[in-house]
C-alpha cells in the first residue's frame, strides 16, 4: 500500500515504554548530585526504537511534494533544482564540524569562503560591499532598512520616518519597515504594471526616508524607470532599497547596483539554489553601494596580507544574528556559483525568462494574464475562468495532476492571482506537461466543475478545515 495514502501516527502514538532509539555510552566518571530544588521530575518525550523511527520519518517524507519529485511553478519562490553537489560540499567535515569561536587563525577555510562569496555576489549585483550575516530574505530587508535608518540619523535627518512601498510588494517589505520603526506609504502601480511615476513624484517630500523596490516586480515585469526612480528618490533626500527576490531573471543580464540601488538583499535559497528544507534555512545576503557600504551588519571578512580576518564595517548597524550568518547555506551557494561560472550565471536568467514567456504564450488565451506584455522569469494569470470557479479550485485540481500549485492570491493587486515561475531547470517536456494539465483543468472547469471543487482527491488528506484550526488551535500533542 502506498505509504502516502495511509495516515501516519504521531511519534507519541508510536511510543512504547522502555524502547530505546539511540544507545549511549556508559558513564566513565563519577555521578554528581543535581541541585535538589531544580531537579526535573517528569519528561514526557516519546520512546521509539530506531527502526520505528526510520519508518515513521521515511513515510512522512513520502507525503510531501518536493522539487526532487514534482514540478513547483511557485511564483516568487524560484523553485529550481537543488544540486546534490552542493550537499556534498556542505557536508564536508571541515565545514560541518567547524566552531565559530575557535579563532581566526584556525578558521582560515571558513573565512576564505565567506570572503570569496562576498566578492562574487558583489560582482554579480554591481555593489561595493556585501555582508552574509542575514539568515533570510526578510532578515536582509530588516538589515537594509536599519542601515538606511542609521545613515539618516547620522546625517541629522530625524523627520524622514516614511518608507514608500509599491502596492505589489511582498508582505515582508512593510513588515520589515515597521520593525525598523518606519511608517509605510503605498505607491500604486500604473496601467502598465510598473510603479506609477506621477504618484511617486507626488509622494516625495522631506518626510520620505526611501523606497523599497522589487525588480523585476511581483507582476514579473522589469521596472523600466528604475534609474529615474532612484534618481528622483535620491534628489528628494531618500535612499533606495532593492528587494532581490526576483534576481533569477537578472543574473548576468543586469546589475542593480549600477542603476542607483543603495542597498539590496538576495535570497540565496532562491537564485542561488540552496534547498528550501520545508521552510528554511535560507540566507539573505545584503549588498551596498558606496553610500551605505560602511553600514553593513557585521562582522564581514576582509583579506589583509594574504590572511583572512573578521572586521566590523566602519559604521556598522551591528549584529543581526549571533556569529556569522547561515554558514552551511553559504557553502552551498558558493559551490553553485563555482559550478555555474560567469557564462552559466547568465544562462540562468536567459533560460528562466524564456521558460516563463513560453508558458505565458501557451496558456494566456485560457487564463488571462493581467499584463500581457512580455514578462521576465514569472507572470501573473487569473484563475476565475468559469462560473463558480476561483483560483483555489484551479490550484487544488493541479495537485491531482501531480503538480504543485503556483503561488495564489499574490500579488494583492491582481484578483484571483496565479503567479507562475517555472525556473530555468525545467525541461520543455515538463513545461508542456504543465500546459496540458492547465488546459485540461480549464476544460473541466466548464464541463465538470465538481472535479475542481472536490480536489484534491489523490492526496493523503483532502482540503483541511482551516477555520477549525484557527478557532480551536491545537498546537501540540496532548495525550
Amino acid at each position, binding site marked *: 500500500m502506498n505509504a502516502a495514502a495511509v495516515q501516519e501516527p504521531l511519534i507519541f502514538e508510536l511510543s512504547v515504554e522502555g524502547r530505546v532509539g539511540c544507545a549511549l555510552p556508559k558513564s566513565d566518571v563519577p555521578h554528581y548530585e543535581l541541585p535538589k530544588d531544580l531537579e526535573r521530575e517528569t519528561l514526557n518525550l516519546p520512546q521509539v526504537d530506531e527502526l520505528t523511527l526510520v519508518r515513521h520519518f521515511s513515510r512522512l517524507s513520502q507525503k510531501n511534494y518536493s522539487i526532487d519529485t514534482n514540478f513547483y511553478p511557485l511564483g516568487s519562490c524560484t523553485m529550481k533544482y537543488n544540486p546534490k553537489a552542493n550537499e556534498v560540499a556542505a557536508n564536508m567535515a571541515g565545514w560541518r564540524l567547524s566552531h565559530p569561536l575557535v579563532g581566526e587563525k584556525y578558521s582560515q577555510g571558513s573565512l576564505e569562503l565567506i570572503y570569496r562569496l562576498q566578492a562574487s555576489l558583489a560582482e554579480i549585483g554591481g555593489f561595493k560591499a556585501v555582508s552574509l550575516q542575514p539568515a533570510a530574505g526578510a532578515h536582509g530587508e530588516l538589515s537594509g532598512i536599519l542601515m538606511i535608518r542609521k545613515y539618516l540619523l547620522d546625517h541629522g535627518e530625524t523627520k524622514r520616518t516614511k518608507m514608500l512601498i509599491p502596492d505589489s510588494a511582498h508582505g515582508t517589505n512593510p513588515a520589515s519597515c515597521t520593525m525598523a520603526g518606519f511608517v509605510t506609504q503605498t505607491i500604486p502601480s500604473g496601467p502598465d504594471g510598473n510603479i506609477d511615476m506621477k504618484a511617486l513624484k507626488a509622494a516625495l517630500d522631506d518626510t520620505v526616508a526611501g523606497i523599497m523596490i522589487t525588480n523585476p516586480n511581483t507582476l514579473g515585469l522589469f521596472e523600466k524607470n528604475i534609474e529615474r526612480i532612484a534618481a528622483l528618490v535620491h534628489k528628494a533626500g531618500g535612499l533606495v532599497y532593492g528587494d532581490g527576490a526576483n534576481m533569477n531573471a537578472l543574473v548576468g543580464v543586469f546589475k542593480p547596483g549600477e542603476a542607483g540601488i543603495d542597498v539590496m538583499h538576495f535570497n540565496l535559497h532562491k537564485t542561488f539554489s540552496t534547498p528550501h528544507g520545508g521552510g528554511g534555512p535560507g540566507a539573505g545576503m545584503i549588498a551596498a553601494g558606496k553610500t551605505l557600504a560602511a553600514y553593513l551588519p557585521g562582522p564581514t571578512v576582509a583579506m589583509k596580507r594574504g590572511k583572512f580576518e573578521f572586521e566590523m564595517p566602519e559604521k556598522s548597524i551591528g549584529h543581526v544574528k549571533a556569529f556569522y550568518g547561515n554558514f552551511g547555506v553559504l557553502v552551498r551557494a558558493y559551490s553553485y556559483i563555482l559550478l555555474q561560472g560567469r557564462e552559466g550565471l547568465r544562462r540562468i536568467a536567459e533560460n528562466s525568462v524564456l521558460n516563463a514567456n513560453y508558458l505565458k504564450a501557451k496558456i494566456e488565451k485560457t487564463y488571462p494574464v493581467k499584463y500581457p506584455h512580455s514578462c521576465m522569469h514569472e507572470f501573473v494569470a487569473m484563475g476565475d475562468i468559469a462560473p463558480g470557479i476561483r483560483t483555489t479550485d484551479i490550484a487544488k485540481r493541479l495537485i491531482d495532476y501531480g503538480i504543485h500549485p503556483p503561488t495564489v*492570491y499574490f500579488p494583492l493587486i491582481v484578483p484571483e492571482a496565479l503567479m507562475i515561475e517555472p525556473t530555468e531547470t525545467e525541461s520543455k517536456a515538463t513545461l508542456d506537461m504543465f500546459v496540458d494539465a492547465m488546459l485540461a483543468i480549464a476544460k473541466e472547469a466548464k464541463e465538470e466543475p465538481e472535479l475542481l471543487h472536490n480536489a484534491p482527491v489523490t492526496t493523503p488528506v483532502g482540503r483541511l478545515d*482551516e477555520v477549525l484550526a*484557527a*478557532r480551536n488551535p491545537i498546537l501540540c500533542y496532548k495525550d
Partner: protein
Amino acid sequence: MSIDAGARYAESHEYARQEGATVVVGISDHAQAELGDIVFVELPQVGKVIGKGQNFGTVESVKAASDLYMPIGGKVVEVNAALQSDPALVNKDPYGAGWMLKVEPTNLSEMDQLLDAKSYGKTIGEE
C-alpha cells in the same frame, strides 16, 4: 443581507444601536459575510475610552484580519465574553448574540453622523 432597522451604521460597516444609556456596537451582516468564517475577535479592555473613528480591535478570518473602528466615541463598559470561545456568533447573529461592545457614549449626537438603516442599505446595494 439583513440590516437592523434599529441601528445606525458607519461606512466601515460597524453598527451602533442605542439601548437606554448605553450603545451596543458590532459589525453588520454584510461585513461578516464578506469576512467569511470568523476565527477570532480581539476586543479592548473594559474601562477604556476610545474616540469615534479610532481602532477598537480586530476581527480575523483564516486569511484576513480587519481593524474595527468606533462608530461613536465613548467608554467601554462591557465586552461580549462569549466571542472568546465562540467567535462564530458574529457570523450567525451579528446584531444579536454576536454583539461586540457596550459603550457609554461621550457625545450622543455623534449617532446623527452615522447612516440610518435605509441609507446604509443603499451603500451596500440593497433595497
